[in-house]
């Protein structure tokens, strides 16, 4: 590791040597949940940051041991509540791997469809809140926020029509998915992604060459390729630092190999590079959604019969790990089964958690205002960090 210490203090030769310790969080407008950063300041410059997590710990892994394989997918969605579909997918994929349960092609396609729609929705929220961090709730940031939330609502409407829920879905189940597409849904989905595609042009027109936006993001929070690999960040962060790593491409799951999409890579490693990566990911997700709708095969949506009792699914003794590419990066789930209807042990590997560990390496040396810009570009969801 580049820096073995969690606390990384830089010396800036301020002379006066008067340091101010300031708490940012756990209740703070840009804490993105309940994150606490203890900043040590010299003037406006941050010289050290202590990241404190754990305010949202809900014993998810222990909870998983007490819930059956039928019950837990709808709880798994509460780990990363902004991207619930991929969290569910990671869990059921791990269980299917241990139990060697096949998934019908149509169910695999539907899983890809919802995962990519979820990525669009999640990135919408990221764009909005990030601009809110930099532009203020009473400023240009709020404008972008409301635009992005407007598009996110459209995707959530699609999910509502599909599953009946807007945030935490319970769409996946072991062996397939729970709901098939309702009548008229594919057309509605196409119209929605077309609309989002057009609106993305508007965002880019508003942000890409915006001088104020660029000075706030370019050269800020630079993660070098080496540092990114050492710390083990994933998702848009590592792709923004010049590493073409995407689980969908390196280890395709759920028929991702059938689809044609790009893995965007930027080399600058700063906030702007991460912004560009995510903006391209928006477009690639839309592309995948269209391909799924075009090539959706007919057939059953689950390899297992409908659920009659919650203890119905029993997984033979064994263990397995799967990973999926969530909106924030590599989301892993490790399941140890003992032959009963409940897992013996479950471990989550949250993308936000490993991404957050980059903060003490890149924040020192920046101004206070950059702290929120960098944190927003990391896009942590604290349900996933603390679990």
């Amino acid at each position, binding site marked *: 590791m580049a820096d073995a210490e969690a606390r990384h203090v830089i010396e800036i030769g301020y002379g006066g040597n008067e340091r*101010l310790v*300031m708490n*940012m969080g756990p209740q*703070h*407008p*840009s804490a993105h949940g309940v994150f606490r950063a203890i900043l040590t*300041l010299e003037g*406006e410059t941050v010289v050290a940051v202590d990241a404190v997590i754990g305010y949202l710990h809900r014993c998810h892994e222990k909870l998983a041991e007490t819930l059956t394989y039928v019950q837990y997918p709808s709880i798994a969605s509460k780990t990363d509540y902004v991207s619930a579909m991929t969290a569910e997918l990671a869990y059921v994929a791990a269980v299917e791997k241990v139990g060697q349960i096949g998934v019908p092609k149509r169910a695999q396609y539907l899983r890809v469809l919802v995962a990519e729609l979820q990525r669009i929705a999640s990135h919408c929220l990221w764009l909005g809140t990030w*601009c*809110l*961090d*930099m*532009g*203020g*709730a*009473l*400023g*240009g*940031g*709020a*404008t972008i926020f*409301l*635009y992005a939330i*407007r598009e996110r609502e459209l995707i959530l409407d699609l999910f509502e029509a599909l599953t009946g829920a807007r945030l935490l879905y319970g769409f996946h189940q072991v062996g397939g998915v729970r709901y098939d597409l309702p009548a008229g849904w594919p057309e509605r989905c196409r119209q929605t992604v077309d609309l989002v595609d057009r609106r993305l042009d508007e965002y880019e027109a*508003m942000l890409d060459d*915006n001088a*104020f*936006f660029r*000075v*706030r993001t370019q050269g800020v929070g630079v993660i070098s390729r080496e540092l990114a690999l050492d710390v083990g960040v994933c998702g848009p962060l590592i792709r923004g630092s010049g590493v073409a790593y995407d689980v969908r491409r390196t280890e395709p799951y759920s028929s991702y190999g059938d689809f044609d999409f790009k893995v965007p890579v930027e080399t600058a490693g700063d906030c702007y590079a991460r912004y560009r990566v995510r903006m391209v990911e928006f477009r690639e997700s839309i592309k995948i959604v269209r391909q799924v709708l075009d090539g959706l095969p007919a057939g059953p949506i689950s390899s297992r019969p409908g659920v009659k009792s919650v203890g119905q699914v029993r997984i033979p003794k064994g263990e397995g790990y799967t990973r999926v590419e969530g909106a924030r990066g590599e989301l892993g789930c490790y399941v140890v089964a003992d032959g009963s209807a409940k897992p013996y042990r479950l471990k989550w590997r949250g993308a936000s958690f490993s991404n957050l560990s980059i903060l003490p390496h890149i924040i020192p040396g920046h*101004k*206070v*205002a*950059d*702290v*929120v810009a960098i944190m927003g570009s990391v896009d942590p969801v604290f349900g996933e960090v603390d679990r």
Partner: protein
Amino acid sequence: MSPLLHHALVGFIVLNVVIGMVTYVTLLERKFAARMQSRIGPYYVGPHGLLQPIADALKLMMKEDVVPAAADRWVYNLAPLAFLVPCVLIFATIPFAPGLGVADLNIGVLFFLAVSSLEIVGLFMGGWGSNNKYALLSAMRAVNQIISYDLPFIFAALVPVVLAGSLRMSTIVEAQRGAFGWFVGAYGVLGPLAFVAFLVATLAAENRVPFDILEAESELVAGFRVEYSGMKFALIQLAEYAHMIATSFLGALLFLGGWLGPGPAALGPVWFLLKAMLIFLVVTWVRWSFVRIRVDQILAISWKLLLPATLVLLMVTAFVVAARGAGGS
């Protein structure tokens, strides 16, 4: 009527008009921002939300007035007043039409610039007296920023003064009479450049996005006023908007020809108001479109770009006016 009584009466009327305007300008801004963000904005209190500002003011008056235990009570309690007084005082020199104003001083522009700079005292008192780290950091930023932007603001405002050859507001307006006489269009690019510089410096002097680093609610929560509540918060809000409107009026006087416009002279105040609101809406438009920039970038813009630019503008203006005077125009 004795002159003293007359002035007191006019002052009282202007003060109340200003407070009424401030409350309604907030509604204007909220409606305008709502349209930009594809929302509707305040709607339910009164027809089209017209009573919303009054409801807001009543709510703030009825709120509990919390004073932090660790606050420096004297400084903390005086700060809103120290902030409000200069912001309202500057309206004294603004003539709304010929002869319609509290005092048309022969040093009107100077008075305006000098007194409006005093608001920084109230700001810093608030930040210091709250005994809060966010507030203190914000107050330090405020001092930095206002010192940096007062100079370009003053230089930009001096361009019309040089053009008109007077510091008296009414003389400056009358000097702009004529078909294309407004100073915003004076001498080709000279006037527009000065006007743009004035607007940028205005944004910074009013602490508006993209220069609202001392409010910066996403970093410093709400900056120097984070500990204020109830009526004290309302006074700070009032002072900010009063300052904003006053600066819009100043811009309309200096660059957009004040009350000059087509139609009878009685329409003068209407034209004046429209021009000031135009400036206000431009400021609002900028506010709701951009992200805020960092403190070091703000200082760099001021000292490296705006200050030299306005200084050159002022000197060029002086040369042009002197050359014209020599030529006997």
